[in-house]
């Protein structure tokens, strides 16, 4: 993002986590409240990124292993004569999906609780910051009108 910009910037989705990274703008006259908001958002972003990157990579890896083991059980190779990657049909993959979902259930529960808490906190802080800014603007306006 350009140096003169006074806003946050959001980028394309991350390769592993599919989340979009945000670069936060730090204003020179940042109030403590605003700093708390920014730090909360940065922390949430880091946690989300870590969770989803790890989760998605684990999914891909386990899926690969599952396909490999099933193909081996069927006596097939990973690639057939034409060099194409051999695949399993949807019904065979269904076992893997069910398994993966139940294995990660507790992890998801924990993450859900975490995410909801963070989301509410951040939004509430945003509200407080917006209110503070509005009051500041009104006070500035009043000062200008008086002079």
């Amino acid at each position, binding site marked *: *993002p350009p140096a003169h*910009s006074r*806003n*946050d*910037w*959001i*980028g*394309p*989705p991350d*390769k*592993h*986590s*599919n*989340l*979009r990274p*945000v*670069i936060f703008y730090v204003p020179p006259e940042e109030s403590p409240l605003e700093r708390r908001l920014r730090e909360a958002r940065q922390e949430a972003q880091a946690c*989300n990124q870590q969770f*989803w990157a790890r*989760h*998605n990579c684990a*999914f*891909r890896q386990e*899926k*690969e292993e599952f*396909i490999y083991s099933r193909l081996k059980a069927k006596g097939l190779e990973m690639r057939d004569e034409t060099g194409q*990657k051999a*695949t*399993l*049909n*949807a*019904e065979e*993959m*269904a076992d*893997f*999906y*069910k398994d*993966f*979902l*139940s294995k*990660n*259930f507790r992890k*998801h*529960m924990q*993450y*859900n609780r975490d*995410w*909801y808490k963070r*989301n509410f906190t*951040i*939004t509430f802080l*945003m*509200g407080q910051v*917006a209110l503070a800014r509005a009051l500041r603007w009104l006070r500035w306006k009043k000062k200008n009108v008086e002079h």
Partner: protein
Amino acid sequence: GLFVWRLKGAGTRHIPCHFVHLCRAANHRLITFQYFNFLKRMYVTQYNKDLSQRAKPKSDPVVSPFHDLQQLDQEKKVIHKISPVSPGHQPWPETSGRNELREVKSPAEGEASAPAPRAEPKDRQWKEMKLQLDELPGILARLSKIKLTALVVSTASAGFAMAPVPFDLPCFLLASLGTGLASCAANSINQFFEVPFDSNMNRTKNRPLVRGQISPLLAVCFAASCGVPGIALLTLGVNPLTGALGAFNIFLYTCCYTPMKRMSIANTWVGAVVGAIPPVMGWTAATGSLDAGALLLGGILYSWQFPHFNALSWGLREDYSRGGYCMMSVTHPGLCRRVALRHCLALIGLSVVAPVLDVTTWTFPIISLPINLYISYLGFRFYRDADRSSSRKLFFCSLWHLPMLLLVMFTCKKSVLDKEDKGDLLGKGESHGRAMEIRLP
């Protein structure tokens, strides 16, 4: 594309039916239901745009149910790519997958004819997180899932139309507006809750909050500014019962269905209730009371949700599994198909109950029998075969089945005048008898 479908009627009449199917609509909302009117609707399917399916309008049509509309492709084997960036990572839309791949390969396509190539390069850039006022209407439309909301409002209108009272236009308009606002509010809150999950699912990854086009604070404020006036309008402008139902539905959708999606498969049933409430609201808006007819209409929509959503979710199992969503199609596939079939058959039963409750004449179950039997047949095929083609057939059938059923129901509605005539005849008979009695002694 447009599909013209001819129903094989039971010899009585042929009903041509048009429906548009969307390309690449990935919607896994259970509750949202796709309710296509007989009027042709052209949906511009864009890169990764989804059409919410399930009717959950008031918060996402029944749980969302927002189903993805997928292209009707030929049966192809699911190609599971184990690559980090696999844009077309979905079982269903092969063509859409191809579209996506094409876009990825040629990002410098520039402003080509279709909007899709334009979306691709913009998506890969770094964007300033500043609210663009000129884009705001579009952003808010997507935030509130305006298309889904429209479908929900149509269901509510159907409920209003079926109520056995003279048609009151101002009341109808107020009820529709209130329902629409409440639905916008519920959908916005749903998206507010689901940002990281939406980013990870192909169907939903282009939503405004995911893309940072709007801040969460603004989304919540928008939801409040839609929900509060919406419910107030329903409570004060229509009647308190409708307002209470609207508020309850918003709560059910945002606070029950949305979190439950990640906790237990029971979310599907909750979502079905969310989808069933709008027509009940339409009825109570017209009559002011919860009659058996209202519950019947709600029951029909409740049962409809299951074949609709279960068939849709069959093709999204991978995304659900990775995203951590607890859906029947992933964890209890047998149950998923059984429930879909069960509710297809329930629709037949409910159609028979309609004339018993004086909602329609006896022609309704007779005329609706062919379409109900057809969807039950597809439900049975889905139950037995459990593959992509049968699930797709069932899903697409559900899209035209509901509007057709509601239309037939409306045409078979028991006229208010009929009931009045009967009452007059009885009254005359009684007065005659009394006159006779007076003369005799």
